[in-house]
């Protein structure tokens, strides 16, 4: 009997995908936002997927990209946190440690040409230290005061670069995230209008229930979008 060859056992393209995740550091910790959509190609197939999950006591993970790979990552992290808790010794893995663990996983999979097709955002607070980092599917990782995945890098980060500052209050942070998510909603075709925001502070993580953004479609620029473009019809 012939068995499946190694060739067909690696990830070639994603199937059910989540769109951008945006996150920023604020006064008490990290705020993260993502919509709850799962696209199947160009179909907005799943409308209630939670893409922001707390990890252990100190971290929050947000993912865009292939949802099944995200679920796989959650299983890895579940096991990691389980073993960490089993030591029962007063030490615990903080966001920096989890971020680096994820980087190792993503990079090693990339080296085998079998990537986990995700862009991950890992944020958290431990002993008063705030941490926010990103890992991509090829293992590129970095830390910053604000991060985003996918189209968020092009649409949300410029807004954050202008308007983020140290010691944002919770309300200011949420407002800023909503502004970013609204732009993404208007301009990213795979975005859905059902947003989840989550925060993590020294006290713990909270994932807020989904809500919808108010949108305005009467902008004059929306009416005749191509009026100034040459060679368009």
């Amino acid at each position, binding site marked *: 009997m012939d068995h499946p060859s190694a060739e067909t056992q690696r990830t070639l393209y994603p199937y059910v995908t989540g769109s951008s995740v945006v996150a920023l550091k604020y006064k008490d910790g990290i705020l993260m936002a993502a919509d709850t959509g799962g696209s199947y190609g160009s179909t907005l197939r799943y409308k209630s997927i939670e893409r922001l999950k707390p990890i252990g006591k100190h971290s929050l993970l947000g993912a865009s990209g292939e949802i099944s790979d995200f679920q796989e990552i959650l299983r890895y992290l579940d096991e990691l946190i389980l073993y960490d808790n089993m*030591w029962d*010794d*007063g*030490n615990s893995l*903080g966001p920096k440690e989890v971020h680096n663990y994820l980087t190792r996983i993503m990079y090693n999979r990339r080296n085998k040409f079998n990537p986990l097709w995700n862009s991950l955002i890992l944020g958290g607070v431990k002993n008063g230290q705030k941490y926010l980092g990103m890992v991509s599917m090829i293992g590129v990782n970095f830390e910053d005061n604000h991060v985003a995945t996918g189209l968020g890098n092009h649409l949300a980060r410029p807004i954050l670069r202008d308007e983020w500052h140290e010691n944002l209050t919770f309300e200011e942070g949420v407002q800023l995230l909503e502004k970013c998510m609204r732009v993404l909603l208007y301009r990213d075709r795979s975005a859905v209008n059902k947003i989840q925001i989550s925060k993590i502070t020294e006290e713990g993580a909270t994932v807020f229930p989904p809500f919808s953004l108010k949108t305005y479609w009467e902008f004059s620029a929306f009416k005749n979008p191509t009026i100034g473009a040459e060679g368009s019809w």
Partner: protein
Amino acid sequence: MFRNQYDTDVTTWSPAGRLFQVEYAMEAVKQGSAAIGLRSKTHVVLACVNKANSELSSHQKKIFKVDDHIGVAIAGLTADGRVLSRYMRNECINYSYTYESPLPVGRLVVQLADKAQVCTQRSWKRPYGVGLLVGGLDESGAHLYYNCPSGNYFEYQAFAIGSRSQAAKTYLERKFENFMGSSREELIKDALIATRESLQGEKLRSSVCTVAVVGVGEPFHILDQETVQKLIDEFEIVREDEPPAEPQPPAEQDAPADQGTGADQGAAAASPDVAPMDI
């Protein structure tokens, strides 16, 4: 202990519920030259007696740096100790690589203890004949552990192992209640005095002992001979049994100068008020 019919291999229990091979391995630790450890809230000091076989040879290395935040002092079969140090270094480096964070000491000693336990339950292995005093820092502060060939480990405020360690332990038992609040200098001084106790009358010189320190903001490192000799000179001016907390000018002014600095505590410890001793 005497030879008996239950001590041939490690997988044989005696009727009294003892594993003689494991106990014999612990004897090997008692035959090695002394190693001492003590800790405060923020620092751990390891010291050991270094006896060379002959004047011609060099000393055996008994203190090993495992990582920036962990060091180990051994007593017993130094070869076994080296192998275990290599294992510890490996574990630390792998953890650092995966998590970009230092391996908590408490976890390292458990791994070490589990490794030792394996050797007490395989007929084709023998127990490691070395006791390890592991000193290190983690989130919850400074820690000192003792790992036994039996696979047991204990946390200590202060401890001594090896030959004539009882004398050092007696001294430490008198003083340990204050260690938690000790300064770095007081801790090193206590370590040196404890080492002197193990020498049983022989003169304490930096050529027969090694001292290493690790602390908050101070990576693990072995103090060089010169520094150690200076510290020895400072307290041997005082009578033998005087507690190091005596108000001697040299002790006091060391504290501010040395706080948290790394490699140059040698220079800082050379306080101008110490009467130059004829060496």
